[in-house]
């Protein structure tokens, strides 16, 4: 059987972290009472006009720069028309002709063989990033034959990140999206929490034989976590391969991922091909951005965005942070990967290192094995850890000074998890876990044990 080459391209919508919406002043907030964050413009009241939110543009520029894109100094807004209950104006304002950023790349790491012992770096090309409006939410109530519409989300700013189809499987897709998520969170341009709908991923999947043209692709939607992303992509690849090997054909359709069943199913709602009748948005002039060179002399700073200024102020991206951790603390790349992968873990580690005598190379083991496994077992985030960096640091210092054995240390840690306020030193004293150094004392104890044995 000829081998199959899967091709995966992702379209990611990241909700911009901002106080107000992309084109109106209403607030952006998750889980507010229905229709409580809707301005006249969001409700598409006739006569209202869009006004561009500066913060959203800055977020898109930051993200574009972090993804090595060229920022278009002139970009345009367009209307994309379709009728749906959650789209009050009957069109979405997006950037179809000239988006704000193009031609970037995203590097991400994969572990080979799932062992975390060998990591390889891969790259996926970013086709473009565009600014667009989010839609409202509609809930279909079939029992009462009605649709409930909540417009709180209508008009919230989105960055659509379009990736080239450089990925080949679920694992790559998951790793790439995870890295993107970390980048967005580091920049602060999006909180990127998938569970709250701040990061949505659609996967385009197709398969073909090497040397032949790309196969027909399907679009997979309704993926609610990174774990499900990997599952959905792998399932769809498998489904397509089986279908084709059985002599069937792949339809160019949209499918939904059913997380309960772990498979993709055709979506009834979406029709075949829609003509969106794109038209330039006449109420928004072209978006002009400047850099240090092109910035006009007497421009009001409130009215312009300077790309170079933003570039200078970008925080360290995850990849840079990882390198710095490796360099500064002598830990392995895999270690720094895990440190950044858990929210707050890197800070925790650094805090412990600051406050303990134990060397970072040894501390890392305690963090990644003991602490992390406890957190996972109890489904806790780093922030929720009953063991604070100070407590762990004290414990590790005791170990380092050889006042206790490593077995004893693990016992103390178990006690610390109870979170009852005792310090490591208190626990050690209580449970008499101190290492004895005094030769005579040791001899006495051993002798006492031997004596007891003889008496029985």
């Amino acid at each position: 059987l000829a081998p199959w080459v899967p091709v995966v391209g992702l379209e990611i919508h990241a909700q911009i972290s901002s106080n107000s919406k992309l084109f109106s002043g209403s607030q952006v907030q998750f889980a507010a009472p229905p229709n409580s964050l809707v301005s006249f413009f969001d409700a598409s009241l006739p006569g209202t006009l869009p006004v561009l939110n500066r913060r959203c543009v800055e977020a898109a520029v930051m993200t574009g720069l972090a993804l090595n894109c060229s920022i278009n100094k002139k970009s345009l807004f367009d209307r994309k028309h379709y009728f749906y209950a959650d789209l009050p104006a009957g069109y979405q304002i997006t950037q179809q002709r000239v988006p704000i950023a193009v031609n970037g790349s995203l590097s991400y790491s994969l572990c080979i063989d799932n062992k975390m012992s060998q990591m390889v770096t891969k790259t996926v090309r970013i086709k473009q990033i565009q600014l667009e409006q989010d839609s409202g939410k509609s809930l279909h109530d079939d029992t009462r034959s009605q649709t409930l519409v909540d417009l709180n989300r209508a008009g919230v700013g989105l960055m659509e990140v379009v990736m080239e189809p450089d990925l080949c499987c679920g694992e790559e897709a998951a790793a790439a999206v995870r890295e993107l998520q970390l980048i967005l969170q580091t920049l602060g341009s999006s909180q990127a929490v998938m569970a709250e709908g701040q990061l949505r991923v659609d996967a385009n999947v197709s398969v073909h034989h090497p040397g032949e043209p790309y196969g027909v692709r399907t679009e997979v939607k309704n993926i609610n976590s990174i774990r499900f992303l990997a599952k959905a992509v792998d399932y769809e690849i498998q489904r397509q391969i089986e279908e084709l090997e059985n002599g069937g054909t792949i339809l160019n359709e949209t499918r939904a991922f059913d997380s309960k069943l772990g498979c993709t199913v055709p979506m009834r709602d979406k029709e075949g091909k829609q003509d969106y009748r794109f038209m330039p948005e006449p109420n928004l002039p072209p978006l002009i951005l400047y850099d240090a060179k092109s910035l006009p002399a007497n421009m009001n700073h409130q009215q312009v965005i300077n790309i170079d200024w933003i570039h200078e102020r970008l925080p360290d991206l995850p990849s840079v942070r990882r390198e710095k951790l490796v360099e500064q603390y002598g830990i392995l790349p895999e270690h720094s990967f895990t440190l950044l992968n858990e929210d707050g873990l890197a800070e925790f580690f650094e805090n412990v290192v600051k406050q303990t005598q134990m060397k970072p190379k040894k501390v890392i083991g305690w963090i990644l094995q003991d602490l992390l496994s406890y957190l996972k077992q109890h489904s806790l985030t780093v922030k929720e850890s009953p063991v604070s960096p100070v407590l762990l640091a004290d414990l590790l210092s005791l170990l380092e000074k050889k006042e206790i054995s490593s077995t004893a240390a693990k016992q103390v840690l178990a006690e610390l998890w109870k979170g009852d306020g005792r310090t490591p030193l208190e626990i050690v004293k209580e449970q008499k876990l101190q290492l004895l150094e005094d030769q005579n004392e040791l001899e006495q104890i051993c002798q006492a044990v031997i004596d007891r044995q003889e008496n029985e």
Partner: protein
Amino acid sequence: QVAVALKEGRVTPTELCQRCLSLIKSTKFLNAYITVAEETALKQAEASEERYKKGQPLGVLDGIPIAVKDNFNTAGIETTCASNMLRGYISPYNATVVQKLLDQGAVLLGKTNLDEFAMGSGSTDGVFGPVRNPWSYSRQYKEKSVPKSHSEDKEPDWVITGGSSGGSAAAVSSFTCFAALGSDTGGSTRNPAAHCGVVGLKPTYGLISRHGLIPLVNSMDVPGILTRCVDDAAVVLGSLAGHDPKDSTTIQDNFKPFELPNLTDVSKLSIGIPKEYHAPGLSSEILTIWSKAADLFQNAGAKVVEVSLPHTRYSIVCYHVLCTAEVASNMARFDGLEYGHRSNMNESTESMYAATRREGFNDVVRGRILSGNYFLLKQNYEKYFIKAQKVRRLIANDFVKVFRSGVDVLLTPTTLSDAAPYMEFIKEDNRTRSAQDDILTQAANMAGLPAINVPTALSERGLPVGLQFIGRSFQEKQLLTVAKWFEKQVQFPMIQLEEVKRHDHGVFQHQKSASFS
């Protein structure tokens, strides 16, 4: 002049308001108003009166009764666009221009009638019925009209106002208000101004905020100003122009309101006469009036030159494509979900949308939506929409070239003929009429230029004929100065309406054109 009267206490704002309101009642047969906001108007008048008593009027417009076309949002007062789709719609906000007028103390009498969603050139296609031109009932028209032989119909053969801002034009023309807001997308303020014998100003695109003006074509719409004299138009312009952060298409530059100088020497002026505006269908009468006007300038020492705007003849087709495309887009929001008419059909969301839109829109609107969607289809976009945009650029460039060659202002007719009788007008459909009537006014919208209709003379039938001046971008002061000079020269007669005579002794009839400034 009435502002002076108010200041001097010769008349009070409430008196003025009441007179206008009762005149509105007596001229109800004109059907110029859709909604008369009697209570709120009187309250506003009272508030104004208080200010005058204290000697603290807000400005020239304080206490002046005005009317607003019913496609501008007015908080608490119904805004219908003369459509079933918005019947009963009470907007929660004021359009920026409405707010500005109210902030100046103007008294909002009501909302005026129009063609549905401003689509039309007759003000005959709204759900509240057609607007009648006040001149139909003027002595001047009645004297000239042939009496109907044995008609039971005592009604004269009434003529249309033109459109789509016919209600506003009729309101100003019949003295029921001192100024009115219209809108102008292809001529909708200038056309009815010409037919009703009033001044109709289309400002430069981007000078006045469109926030709150229910859009027809976002890239061409402007709020229009209708008044009885050019000075009044300048005053209203002064209170409305300027950047609005709520409208991203308004220019940022600071606008300074101006007073119009009394031009005496026109020798430094260059007037351009575009030959393409000698359009097919132009009545010989209007041609004559236009020529006389050109001579008037020449004899006064101005330089009058023939110029060419070669792409004029493509403007109708170009406008049709761009207008319908934007209309299709702008009307997409009317689905019955959030506001406005909602059909009882509830089998599915889609069927509800379809029924709502069929019930809510008249066939003119639906026709334009269908055309527009056709032009926006992927396979047609390049051929039609993009092409039309390119042609639009050419049309705009024609004007740039002409103004660069030294011409200050262009002089053209505003309409092809005087106002048609309603029964004649409706023989052709809306689309045909619009295509014919817009030819002289529409290019200014394509190019975003300021233009103004100045009532010039009466036709043989005793009906108003106006001429149009087109100026340079953002050069309203120059444009209006020339218009004012011309207005002074032609001394357009005042309408002689029974109802107006009955209602008023002092204020309306005192001055020639009963202006407010």
